[in-house]
């Protein structure tokens, strides 16, 4: 198993953290992992993006041109990755923020209303967990439970009170995607 997953959104949407949760989960289940951000210019705002690689073997390149999976949070991310995801790959699309259509027939596309679900469960800032949960449903690179555990273990101390809601959102994303 060797899989590359990109998370991409605006700064503040939590794409980087979603990637980290996945990375922790995969690491804790014994996989080789890398997580690398595409760190932007020395200034505010802009894009937040990371690439996670999960593999049974030692990982060479931590970056790829054509990821297996892209979880896209916003329009620009969709535009970029709908050309980059490899043929046969998966794209998880945050339909709450994205109004562009996908015109790739050689990839699987999963639309999920990340924003709405997160708001429904309490806070739009949990959109990232909806999308992660959904991705895991469509592409079980790790068990959902591993992701839940990773989330609990790696939320910073001062955010531990958000663990439960986030886990709930993660599950909801997973379930929503499973249904579809």
């Amino acid at each position, binding site marked *: 198993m060797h899989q590359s997953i990109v998370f991409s959104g605006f700064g503040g949407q939590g794409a980087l953290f979603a990637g980290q949760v996945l*990375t922790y989960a995969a690491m804790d289940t014994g996989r080789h992992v890398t*997580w690398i951000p595409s*760190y932007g210019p020395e200034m505010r705002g802009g894009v937040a993006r990371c690439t996670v690689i999960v593999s049974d073997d030692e990982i*060479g*390149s931590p*970056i790829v041109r054509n990821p297996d999976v892209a979880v896209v949070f916003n329009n620009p991310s969709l535009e970029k990755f709908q050309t980059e995801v490899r043929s046969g790959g998966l794209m998880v699309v945050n339909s709450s923020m994205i109004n562009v259509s996908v015109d790739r027939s050689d990839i699987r596309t999963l639309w999920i209303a990340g924003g709405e679900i997160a708001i429904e469960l309490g806070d739009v800032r949990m959109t990232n967990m909806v999308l992660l949960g959904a991705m895991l449903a469509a592409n079980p690179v790790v068990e959902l439970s591993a992701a839940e555990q990773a989330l609990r273990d790696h939320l910073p101390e001062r955010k531990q009170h958000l663990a439960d809601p986030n886990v709930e959102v993660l599950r909801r994303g997973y379930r929503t995607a499973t249904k579809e």
Partner: protein
Amino acid sequence: MARELWKGNEALAEASVRAGLVAYFGYPITPQTELLEYLSLRMVKLGRAFLQAESELAAINMVYGAACTGVRVMTSSSSPGISLMQEGLSYIAASEVPVVLVDIMRGGPGLGNIQPSQGDYFQVTRAAGHGDFHPLVLAPATVQEAVDLVYLAFDLAEKYRTIVIVVADGNIGQMMEPAEMPPMRKVKKDRPDWALTGADGREHRIITSLELGAERLEALNLRLQKKIARIRQAEVRYQEHKVEDADILIAAFGTMGRISQTAAEMARAKGIKAGVFRPISLFPFPDERLEELSRQVSRILVVEMNAGQMLDDVRLAVGKDFPVEFYGRMGGVVPLPDDVLEVVERIGAELNDEQR
């Protein structure tokens, strides 16, 4: 110690703490800043010295001062900041005090940008300041290796009374990977016998890089050259990946080493026998081993995130008649495995043609 997920910069910082770092002086600069930020909390909590200097110039001279007292000390920066340290580095080298420096390279020249680069190779291996000296230069390719090398760097710095530079591109500073931290070492209480500790019950000691007489300065230089020779003898480090039966050998360091490894695997999947030679010590450069390998492969491809700097060392090692090709990207563009593969395939095709 269990493996944990570490960001490269923070891993470098924590490993340094565990190596017995007594004092850190540095200045913020992307993509190195997390190292400084991490230590701003960690060192202070441990009651050790942390100071954000007013500049890189001040930082390297603070490091110089602390090093003269025989404690473990480091600074870190990125390319433009390293340029500002050149005078200080030359003084430190001439004074033979141990110093560890981390350079998380970014795109240059000038202000450039903050994307990953390997553009400081010449600066760290050839001319980290005026005059004849070479720091010992180590280039990790993974976060674990960054941890191990910086931990080792303090020992090597002390052993040879030299500057050890751990040099990595921004990718390594910014990425997260599992790593196992080395054990926490106690801060050594005793100081070496050359250190400035106060002339209490002994002759006063002097640390200087001034030698007014030409013969005396030459003697100092000969001592430095001898040390360099010892380092060349003992501290060569490299990693090989499937070189045994390789036709095409990719030579690349740091991140480019691991990316090349992926490219080599892809090439092998297409029937091209590619292998990777990854120098870990950039100075001393593993020239003997590379020369040896050159006798067994058909072509060497050097891949760097610069305009061709390690390339000189490769050419010096294998000679001008051996076919060496170069693929380099600059300005923060990171060659991806398929970019490298493309070149490897082209070379593979050429080799086939030649054989026909």
